[in-house]
């Protein structure tokens, strides 16, 4: 079909340093805890508590909901993360991130992103740095 829409993507070359990007927010529910529990086979002791790893996991999906095309990530290489404040069912979290390091490699480039997760009161509940391998723009 002629004129089929082309999915826009961001490549290593498009990544801008130190530009803060804020995601929409999501409310944490008992359903999130139940789904997470079925994946991890974990047994929550307090039904109102949100497992520590849920906000981190959900922040990667929130990153897809910003008003810009998705970054072509080839691999998630690693991260360092701090858990500063517990979250509870009913809390609403969002994430703010910026790129702090860009390093060109032979195949793609390494991008280090600084990310904080905030609750509805604006308190940072978790934060850290994530290292991603990002594709370079293919030759036209």
């Amino acid at each position, binding site marked *: 079909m002629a004129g089929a829409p082309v999915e826009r993507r961001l490549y290593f070359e498009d990544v801008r340093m130190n530009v803060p990007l804020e995601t929409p927010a*999501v409310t944490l529910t008992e359903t*999130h805890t139940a*789904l*997470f529990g*079925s*994946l*991890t*086979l*974990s*047994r929550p*002791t307090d039904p109102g508590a949100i497992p*520590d*790893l849920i906000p*981190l*996991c*959900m922040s*990667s*999906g*929130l*990153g*897809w*909901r910003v008003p810009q095309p*998705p970054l072509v*990530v*080839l*691999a*998630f*290489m*690693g*991260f*360092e*993360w*701090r*858990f500063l404040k*517990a979250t509870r069912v009913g809390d609403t979290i969002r994430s703010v991130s910026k790129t702090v390091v860009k390093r060109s490699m032979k195949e793609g480039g390494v991008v280090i992103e600084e990310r904080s997760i905030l609750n509805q009161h604006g308190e940072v509940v978790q934060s*850290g740095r994530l290292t991603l391998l990002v594709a370079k723009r293919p030759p036209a």
Partner: protein
Amino acid sequence: MSGEPVVYFEDIQLGEQYTSPGRTVTEADIVIFAGLSGDYNVLHTDAEHMKASLFGARIAHGLLGLSIQQGLLDRVVPGQAVGPLAAVKWKFKGPIKIGDTIHVEARVAAKKEGERTDAGVITVERRVLNQRGEVVQEGETDHVVSRRPI
């Protein structure tokens, strides 16, 4: 869980080792995790795209592997020995594909008394291995653990 013995900071020995049971990572795990996290990256969701990729097939989200290993290790660590997470340093060394069976090998690498009088921090080194013995993820986690009341 009520009925389980409480494990205090003092009860955890430096160098203590744990080996978790295995767990086969399925397509369902990846689909549920994509829905839960909202991360629909082609790496995890587009089988056709991934045939031509470096990995040759869809791979599990790195954070899904991290979450599964956390659940696996919780099954073998006594009581509440591994308390709430304070920090994680983590490396994704290789892909986890649909059908791979992973388990965790862990060791208490450090115990720090810190400034709090009611709790200490333990550092657990963890390696996630697949059915071929390849390390697919590794790192360390810090946990706050209550001290025995005086």
